[in-house]
């Protein structure tokens, strides 16, 4: 996994200027060092500083998109993450032209096999089954393998009586896998239901963006639902809604704060406070703590 962490820095660079990186940071190489331009306010920030600030812009507070590896680095206690089903890779079940190549390309550039990383980790000593989606991999879309990895993780959590933590970010079901992707919504929700019935805690963290089939299945089934600031969260994408109703959408529409207002998330939590909040929730739910662990400063 460490190798993957080191890739993060490279990845941030690689995505600069591409269409996918609209809301993350654009790298500029100046004589003074490596700067990044905030995708939201367009101010320049020293990359080193940005990294230290958890990829949140100093100027406007924009929470830049994170790879799964960077997210795990920020949330899991050092050296505690153990990955499951890491080698699962997707094939092209409907033989959609170009899809196999796209998968191969995404595996290469992201140095990961699919749009979700699953495993177990400790959060300030509290053990969790954790899944982290990665929107750099085909927009975090959910196909057969993503659905299978999440379902298998949830089942493992139920069996081992572990609490569950899922960081969602996804454009929805992966259309290149057609109806097979749709059925992942059923499968994951079924597994969450069993975890729920076993009296176990499930915390769902919604990050930018979480829409479509992921938001309409496991992401919205948490006992506790937390959203990062200003994340786009909804069922239909804003473009589709705009086309359908043929009118402009309100400024804050489908953003975390909007959802909080409408009653669909418990809290909007800034990235710098996220690990603290998760730790508090763990204590409040009496999640067992590993002996000898000391809280990080």
């Amino acid at each position: 996994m460490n190798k993957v962490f080191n890739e993060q820095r490279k990845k941030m660079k690689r995505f600069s200027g591409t269409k996918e990186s609209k809301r993350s940071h654009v790298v500029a190489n100046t004589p003074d060092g490596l700067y990044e331009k905030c995708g939201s306010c367009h101010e320049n920030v020293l990359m080193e500083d940005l990294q230290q600030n958890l990829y949140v812009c100093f100027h406007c507070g924009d929470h830049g998109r994170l790879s799964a590896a960077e997210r795990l680095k920020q949330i899991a206690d050092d050296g505690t993450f153990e990955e499951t089903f890491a080698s699962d890779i997707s094939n092209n079940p409907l033989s959609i032209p170009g899809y196999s190549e796209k998968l191969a390309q995404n595996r290469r550039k992201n140095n990961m096999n699919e749009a979700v990383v699953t495993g177990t980790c400790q959060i300030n000593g509290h053990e969790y089954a954790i899944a982290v989606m990665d929107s750099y991999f085909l927009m975090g879309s959910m196909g057969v393998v993503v659905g299978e990895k999440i379902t298998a993780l949830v089942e493992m959590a139920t069996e081992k009586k572990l609490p569950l933590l899922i960081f969602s970010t996804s454009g929805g079901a992966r259309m290149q896998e057609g109806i097979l992707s749709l059925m992942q919504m059923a499968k994951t929700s079924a597994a969450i239901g069993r975890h729920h019935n076993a009296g176990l805690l499930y915390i769902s963290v919604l990050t930018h963006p979480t829409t479509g089939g992921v938001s309409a299945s496991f992401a919205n089934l948490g006992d506790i639902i937390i959203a990062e600031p200003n994340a786009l969260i909804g069922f239909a994408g804003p473009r589709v809604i705009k086309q359908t109703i043929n009118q402009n959408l309100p400024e804050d529409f489908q953003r975390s704060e909007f959802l909080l207002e409408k009653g669909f998330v418990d809290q909007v939590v800034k990235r710098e406070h996220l690990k603290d909040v998760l730790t508090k929730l763990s204590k409040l739910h009496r999640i067992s703590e590993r002996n000898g662990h000391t809280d990080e400063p």
Partner: protein
Amino acid sequence: MSLKNTELLIEQLKQQLETLDESGDKNNTLKSELTQLIENAQQEAFNQLEPEDKVYLARHPLRPNAKSYIDTLFDDFIEMHGDRNYGDDKSIVGGIGLLQGIPVTVIGQVKGKTLEENMERNFGMPHPEGYRKVLRLAKQAEKFGRPIITFIDTPGAYPGIGAEERGQAEAIAACLMTFMELRVPIIAIVVGEGGSGGALAIGIADKIMMLEHSIYSVLSPEGFASILWKDAGRAKEAAKLMKLTAQDLHQFGIVDILIEEPVGGIHTQVDFVMKQLKEVLFRELMILIDKDANMLLDQRYKKFRNMATPEAV
């Protein structure tokens, strides 16, 4: 020739026949030739239906809507309105009726038959309150030990401001999780268009059936084409790639039973298909009713757990 064009051709031939009749022409040879031509054209078109034709048939304006099925298949149907929270979504009809004397809860997504009815029913595209009405009726069914039968026919959940404000995603997710755990038998039938998560929300069942010329997909062929190729005009091509026909779904093991339709589609012989469907429904319901609830839930879980896995595809 696409089915749509064949239908246009048949329409023309039928008009010629009518003109002949009206003119009092006694040329019986011409008449029987025309009749034969019509039959042949239809037969030929149905011998080689392309996925785009299936899409056309699934959305055919003359195709019976879920309300037609409910009215035909169930006796003493009483509709129940509202989600007890916000309102009554008319794109979803729910209530209680008798199937061969057995009380069942019936839920269906209903498209309008006229423009006016379509406005009222929002073209069969539910809002969150529709899904919450489903949840309410489903839990009520469980309380009274009534099996549930759902009819799927929607382009998808409605993408609008109100729908998002009231939690479309949460409403659908809640349906998925709840239906997995209802301790009564559930049968779902895709009768027309099974569009995306909005369809799946009432598609968790112990037996899943599909009419022969219905479709079920992750998004519409138009949506697929416009995302993949930035060109909604390539929907025909998309339909071919997407594997969205009843036959495809059956092959994937997602659908258990296909209900045959006559040449011309169900709307040409509604009574015949309804009779078949009623028999199959009753037969399957009898099998499910006999099962112990724990076993039913276990089998339902496994059904979806083993569906569309990396090994299965």
